[in-house]
């Protein structure tokens, strides 16, 4: 065979360099949509930070970059003693509810998933059905309840409706379905009691779900507004969102201060997300390798 025959022709070379650049319109449209979506997500955060760097007179000036940027708002919010109290309240409430949800949602979810007992289906449906009732409707019964128990204007009052959630129970039940019964039976033979099996065997196997639930619950409680607003009276009991909404006076809302407080209060949520996200990713890797 002659050597020239296996050499690529000039046409072939041209085609070879052309093809990788060729992209379908669909690809561009997808990028455009992603870009718009990303912009929609980032805009409010960027606007929040932008506003927090403005003087009051510039707030309604819809410029993205302030004419006279200032960190005066941050100094004010951080020097104003109230903010620390609210921040502490929010931390305590979000942390306690998160821990409570991780423990009790998974305990109930595990029980509903792994034990056969009469009425368990009805219990599960009853728990799920509470998901259909909006918070706004529950606020009044909660209030009456808190009042009769003397929980108004206390941590306990703010926290009690969220210490367990139907959503969390459902999520954990579904995740425990993926834990093979063999693990639990092996542990039973190895001599663990049921509570030990749940804690030492089942819980570590659903770490990704626990991490997801922790993020949901923490964020949900960190940003909760209506219920903490209603159940608290004294400014010392306010959470960050409730406290921030009160910045300013009757005549004017101090948006620059609200945005400053909001910007500061995103820091803990970022930390929580970064910490627990690692578990989610590691969990996925672990599950992928498990033969």
């Amino acid at each position, binding site marked *: 065979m002659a050597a020239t025959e296996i050499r690529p022709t000039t046409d072939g070379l041209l085609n070879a360099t052309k093809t990788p650049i060729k992209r379908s319109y669909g690809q561009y449209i997808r990028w455009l949509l992603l870009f718009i979506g990303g912009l929609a997500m980032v805009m409010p955060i960027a606007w929040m930070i932008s506003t927090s760097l403005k003087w009051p007179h510039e707030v309604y000036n819809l410029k993205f970059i302030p004419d006279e940027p200032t960190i005066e708002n941050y100094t004010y919010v951080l020097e104003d003693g109230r903010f620390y109290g609210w921040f502490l309240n929010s931390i305590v409430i979000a942390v306690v509810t998160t821990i409570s949800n991780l423990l009790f949602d998974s305990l109930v979810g595990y029980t509903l998933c792994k034990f056969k007992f009469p009425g368990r289906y009805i219990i599960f449906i009853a728990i799920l059905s509470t998901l259909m009732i909006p918070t706004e409707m529950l606020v009044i019964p909660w209030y009456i309840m808190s009042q009769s128990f003397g929980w108004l204007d206390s941590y306990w009052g703010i926290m009690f409706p969220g210490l367990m959630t139907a959503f969390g129970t459902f999520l954990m039940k579904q995740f425990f379905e993926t834990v*093979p019964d063999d693990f639990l*039976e092996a542990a039973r*033979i*190895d001599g663990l009691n049921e509570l030990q099996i749940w804690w030492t065997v089942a819980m*570590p196997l659903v770490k990704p779900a626990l991490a997801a639930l922790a993020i949901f619950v923490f964020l949900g409680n960190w940003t909760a507004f209506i219920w903490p607003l209603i159940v608290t009276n004294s400014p010392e009991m306010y959470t960050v969102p409730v406290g921030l909404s009160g910045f300013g006076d009757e005549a004017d809302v101090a948006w620059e201060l609200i945005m400053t407080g909001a910007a500061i209060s995103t820091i803990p949520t970022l930390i929580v997300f970064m910490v627990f996200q690692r578990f989610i990713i590691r969990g996925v890797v672990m599950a992928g*390798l*498990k033969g």
Partner: protein
Amino acid sequence: MANLTLKDLQKSYGKTEVLHGINLEVKDGEFVVFVGPSGCGKSTTLRLIAGLEDASGGDIEIGGRVVNNLEPRDRDIAMVFQNYAIYPHMSVKKNIAFGLRTSKLSKPEKEARIQDVAAILDMVDLLERKPNQLSGGQRQRVAIGRAMVRDPAVFLFDEPLSNLDAQLRTQMRLEIKKLHQRVGNTIVFVTHDQVEAMTMADRIVIMKGGHIQQVGPPEQVYRTPANIFVAQFIGAPSMNIWDGEIKGGRVMLGDVALPLSLAHVKAGTPLKIGVRPDDLQLGSADPILHGTVSLREPLGPETLLYLSSDLGAVIVRAPGKNPPEVGDRIALGALAENIHLFDATSGEALV
């Protein structure tokens, strides 16, 4: 001394009875294999012995005491599961040590026991690894190690080899057998694979539909199956079964009178006649049937021949070298001792 005794063991789920009274005595140090098709009740029996499910009737005795009402941990058993059930979030060492959590041994004693087990299973270098860094066979060994470390009266194995590939399965089969010879604990092993049962067992328990069909050493269940089910389940390829009858005191297979007498069976009784593929002799001078080769399966040392005959399909094991060609008509004979007779209605062996 019996180490494990099942007395009229029954199990039902609601109205569905899955075990209809199992009776069995397992001697100390015996390797017993439960084998049967899926749904035969073999795994259920094992789970009842383990205490993972409650018996609906009958007694389970381990080491001379009735354990029906004891928790699994108090029954002096250890179990190896089909999918290993080793905890993915613990190292190999922790997994093995897990079996000792409730034991009253001192810490150095526990450590010594773990090292012993690791040495026996050739896992000393793997102790610090996580399960996802192990191969399938190694994981199975960890599972066995976790069971061994407890030194139980009875080991229970629930189809432990069915997740492994063929080569590894053969290897682990040998390892488990060696392990048994070395540690000598009683083993109850459940499998659906008759080859595993034949190769490992001291005694095989063949089950079907919640009943024990036959109990005996591998050689015995192979040579003298109690009924057609056992005859066809044990041995691969399966025993050939044809219709036969009794005429004038002689056993007839088609037109051929077999060299067997069955004085106590009434004339005209419908029979099933069985001969194993290995026991059919090619080119016999005194054939019991003829067939035409329709398919050949060369396996190397031997060739399986699929024949069509007037009596139906026939499988024959032929030599690996120069086997008959497809289309050849061949005569097949069998020794009287290798011909099995069964009652056509009950399926029971007629001796």
